[in-house]
């Protein structure tokens, strides 16, 4: 095993973990509302900017700035659901999709207008920039930190979904919205909570993305957003473990493919979509997905 392979592997795992965190938000929203939340990638983008301004403008110590950014992003996610998706709950599905695109476009344009379109450098936090020598390869501390954080959040999330009353309500709403309502579940509250959880994870991913890749700009959420939806589909949409598996496949696949074929670097973003087409052809329900039958 060459040392450069190890380097690529570590990079792939940390990219995969970031994809996984964002993909969970897509898969949860799709599970409950059957909506591709186009704004999710832009919520992710706002997360990095909140953290950026927390540190640079308000001079908060970084742990506090990160917590504030995560809370602000979660609130933003909830606000978007209330303002743009809730009024359209009985509308045709296409209206909801257009609304999601509208929100995404609005967030991008607001970011360009308010924060300016120029890329900004995410503040350098010394702790994460430290490098560790492993088997002769220098690896940034953040590369170990990202998968660890992802696994911790995944464990908490799976516990909440599978072992608490709230999780049961969420599963019920995603199985059958109307029956859940009849059974006395406050579906609007559950949907809000779903958006809060999804946005929180997106913010966590976004902050780590900022630390890892150091450059932030208003359109940074678009490609990761699209790819993470693909990751959710690859893993089996509606399935949280599937989103994580899909995220890792996508992150590792992307990094290793570029490592193996360096002259394809310009086409790295195409990998996710080729994977989407392949998965739709050969395993349309995704790797961990169950078969969904259409109800008449």
């Amino acid at each position: 095993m060459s040392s450069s392979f190890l380097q690529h592997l570590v990079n792939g795992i940390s990219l995969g973990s970031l994809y996984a965190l964002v993909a969970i938000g897509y898969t949860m929203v799709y599970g409950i509302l059957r909506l591709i939340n186009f704004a999710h990638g832009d919520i992710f983008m706002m997360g990095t900017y909140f953290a950026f301004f927390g540190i640079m403008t308000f001079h908060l110590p970084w742990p506090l700035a990160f917590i504030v950014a995560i809370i602000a992003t979660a609130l933003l996610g909830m606000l978007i659901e209330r303002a743009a998706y809730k009024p359209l709950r009985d509308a045709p599905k296409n209206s909801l999709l257009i609304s999601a695109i509208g929100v995404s476009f609005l967030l991008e344009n607001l970011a360009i207008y308010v924060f300016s379109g120029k890329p900004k450098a995410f503040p350098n936090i010394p702790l994460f920039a430290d490098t560790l020598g492993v088997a002769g390869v220098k690896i940034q501390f953040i590369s170990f930190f990202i998968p660890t954080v992802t696994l911790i959040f995944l464990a908490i999330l799976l516990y909440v979904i599978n072992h608490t009353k709230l999780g049961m309500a969420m599963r019920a709403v995603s199985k059958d919205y109307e029956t859940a309502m009849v059974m006395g579940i406050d579906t609007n509250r559950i949907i809000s909570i779903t958006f809060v959880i999804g946005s929180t994870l997106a913010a966590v991913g976004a902050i780590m993305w900022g630390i890892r890749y150091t450059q932030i700009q208003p359109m940074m959420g678009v490609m990761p957003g699209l790819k993470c939806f693909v990751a959710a589909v690859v893993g089996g949409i509606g399935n949280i473990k599937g989103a994580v598996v899909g995220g890792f496949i996508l992150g590792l696949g992307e990094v290793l493919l570029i490592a193996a074929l360096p002259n394809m670097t310009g086409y790295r973003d195409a990998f996710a979509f080729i994977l989407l087409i392949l998965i739709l052809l050969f395993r349309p329900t995704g790797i961990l997905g169950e078969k969904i039958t259409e109800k008449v």
Partner: protein
Amino acid sequence: MKKQDKILTVILLAALFIFLIIANLFLDAYIKRVLNLCAIYTILALSMNLINGFTGLFSLGHAGFMAIGAYCVGIFTLPISVRPANFYIEPMHPAIANVELPFFVALLLGGVLAAFFAFLIGAPVLRLRDDYLAIATLGFSEIIRIVLTNMQSITNGPLGIKNIPTTANMWWIYGVTLVTVIFLVLLISSSYGRAFKAIREDEIAAQAMGINLFRHKILSFMIGAFFAGIAGGLYASMLSTVDPKNFIFTLTYNFLLIIVLGGMGSVSGTIISAYIVTAGLEIMRFFDEPLSIFGVSIPLFRPGLRMVIFSICLMIIVLFFRNGLMGNKELNWDMLRGLFSKRSKRIKGGEAR
């Protein structure tokens, strides 16, 4: 069609013809360009409405299909003599370096290629889950842009192609637009169009009636892409340059706003709103300029404000005026007779619904 309606339609077409002659002679270049852009956006929005509004699929790939058509015209109509000046970083690929096509052929080729790519994405996605079409097409349109930026020897990469002959004058553009409108109106009122609408209303019921879902969906998707490619070719020839940055996926959102404002599933609504939105976007350019009143500069006006207002408009329409101007009704002579004699720039549409 009633006899009176036929006469009115002919008069309308004649009026359009006279308007074009006058416009060509007297209007300045900027206004002519905006009018041309309106017509090109009409083609794009109509073809997108065929997919999204009439068939109920959700495609966001129009910028990509448009780019295919634009590059086809750009590459193949560029005179061989100016090619070395354009492709100065890397010479043009020898397979196409000496191929020059007439404008019309290149335009058609662009449309056909766009339809072919639509088939490539549509076949796997539409056969299974068409709710993934939005993501697949959005991703595809970005990939097209990435590929165009990277294929230096064919597309001249990020430099784009300059000095494309401006064959597409007002007559070309309005002629193609008229053909598109007539074709789509006939298509929508044909048995295919009825099948598209049946699929939009209820897929399972449509299938039960014997409509082949996949075949109709892919047909609608490919025809839409074909016209997007044609419009892209006109666009390239009108601007005389193509640049991969022009075809960023947010361009598709312009067409989305047009069809949402005009009404998903209305030809006449789409045409009207294509003019409103395109002209509106041009007028709104002053939002991006710094503004000062009596020497006091208003800090809000700076680059980016226009697109913020644009996206807020999109949100307002989809949240509060979901049916847009026309819903899925059509403007026709009977309706106009009821109203005042409002001018409309279109031929009579197929029956609504």
